[in-house]
């Protein structure tokens, strides 16, 4: 019987295991998880830190869930070695595990930038439930926090710490917040929402050192300013966890390089999710992890049966309670694009439409929930809206006129 082994117990690993179990009932199917917990909802870790959800709420998939589906899950079992020629894994306790088909779905690790003093106590990154537990416990004894990184996770972490009553400052190296999803004008509106929560922000600043004795006392910027802190979270991005793949001699670039079948450079080894680099892209988003997991699972069962064609980013996300949607060419500032903007900082709303040849090719929408659907349709249809630019910037456009 074919022995399927999945390394990783996040969205990609669990989705793939479930797909294999569905198509091959009774298969010899194993999931190896480095962490001691069954599947949990990683996007909810900031809510867990804030005390809005409990550990039970996010780790709600007990080991029986796996058993009922014929998946043998091995928690707290880091894989430390991969021998691709011998089709064998070695676990941290020295056990050898053979496989016929292997899926690498170990995800990513939080990147800690090489800043002086990050080894002091009270300095953290946030990726795992253990990280979240440690931060939550430390936050109980803290008054002032600094979050280094003003991307999605950094802002969500800041919101959580603020909810616990800490004074929070966010430091972002880019000239404005969420530079991957927003433009400068949109970020200015978001910043107002964040300031209203009582969170301070500093953009265009370089974090130079973490000061203190054994524990952190302050963060110093390159411009010399110091921010007192007894808790610091670095939120500087996620890197694919490629240690095992690299050691095994697989082709690794930023992530583990895969072909259109999501196969790595080694036979019978596939990769999916945050660890994988497909078409030169490490997607790092939930929809891509799900799609890749399904394609990889199909190919594990029946090689060559499914092709991955890339994922169009679904980029609606919640940040600090605001709903942010980015569609198409939204951050690009190409010369041939006409930009229409409507900002309502008081209401925390922002609408930017990027147009080319009279057609909408991109949009950034902050708290514009009721208009998102119409704008998406205009973009998808390629409707010529050049005669309606005034209408597009009204507070409540009569979309029916344009969509009729």
């Amino acid at each position: 019987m074919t022995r399927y082994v999945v390394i990783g117990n996040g969205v990609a690993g669990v989705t793939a295991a479930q797909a294999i179990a569905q198509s091959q009932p009774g298969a010899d199917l194993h999931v190896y998880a480095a962490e001691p917990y069954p599947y949990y909802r990683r996007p909810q870790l900031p809510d867990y830190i804030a005390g809005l959800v409990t550990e039970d709420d996010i780790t709600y998939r007990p080991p029986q869930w796996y058993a009922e589906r014929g998946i043998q899950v091995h928690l707290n079992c880091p894989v430390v070695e991969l021998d691709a020629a011998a089709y064998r894994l070695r676990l941290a306790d020295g056990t050898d595990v053979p496989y016929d088909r292997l899926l690498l779905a170990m995800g990513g690790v939080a990147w800690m930038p090489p800043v002086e003093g990050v080894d002091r106590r009270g300095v953290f990154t946030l990726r795992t439930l253990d990280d979240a537990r440690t931060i939550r416990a430390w936050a109980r004894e803290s008054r002032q926090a600094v979050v280094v990184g003003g991307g999605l996770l950094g802002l969500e972490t800041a919101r959580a710490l603020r909810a616990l009553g800490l004074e929070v400052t966010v430091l972002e190296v880019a000239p404005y917040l969420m530079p991957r999803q927003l433009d400068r004008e949109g970020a200015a509106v978001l910043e107002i929402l964040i300031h209203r929560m009582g969170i301070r922000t500093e953009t265009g600043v370089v974090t130079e050192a973490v000061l203190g004795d054994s524990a952190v006392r302050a963060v110093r910027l390159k411009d010399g300013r110091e921010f007192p802190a007894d808790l610091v979270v670095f939120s500087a991005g996620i890197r694919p966890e490629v240690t095992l793949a690299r050691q095994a001699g697989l082709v690794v670039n930023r992530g583990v390089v895969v072909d259109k079948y999501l196969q790595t450079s080694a036979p019978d080894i596939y990769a999916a999710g945050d660890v994988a680099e497909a078409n030169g892209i490490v997607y790092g988003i939930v929809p891509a992890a799900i799609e890749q997991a399904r394609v990889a699972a199909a190919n594990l069962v029946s090689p060559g049966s499914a092709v991955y064609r890339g994922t169009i980013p679904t980029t609606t996300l919640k940040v600090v309670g605001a709903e942010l949607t980015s569609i198409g060419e939204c951050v690009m500032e190409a010369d041939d694009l006409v930009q229409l903007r409507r900002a309502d900082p008081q209401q925390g709303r922002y609408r930017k439409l990027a147009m080319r040849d009279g057609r909408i090719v991109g949009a950034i929408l902050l708290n514009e929930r009721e208009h998102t659907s119409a704008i998406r349709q205009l973009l998808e249809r390629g409707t010529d809206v050049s005669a309606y630019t005034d209408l597009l910037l009204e507070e409540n456009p009569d979309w029916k006129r344009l969509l009729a």
Partner: protein
Amino acid sequence: MKWECMVCGYVYDPEKGDPSRGIPPGTPFEELPDDWTCPDCGATKDMFEKVS
């Protein structure tokens, strides 16, 4: 009947629908289009489970 996203915990409430995708209030989860995705994290429809 409400449905919950396994990935991020978003709850689809048919009484509210999903205005950002043009889904009117009163739409049962079963009648959402197949390509509908979680408004918070982008997970596909089959990543949702019923909640009581």
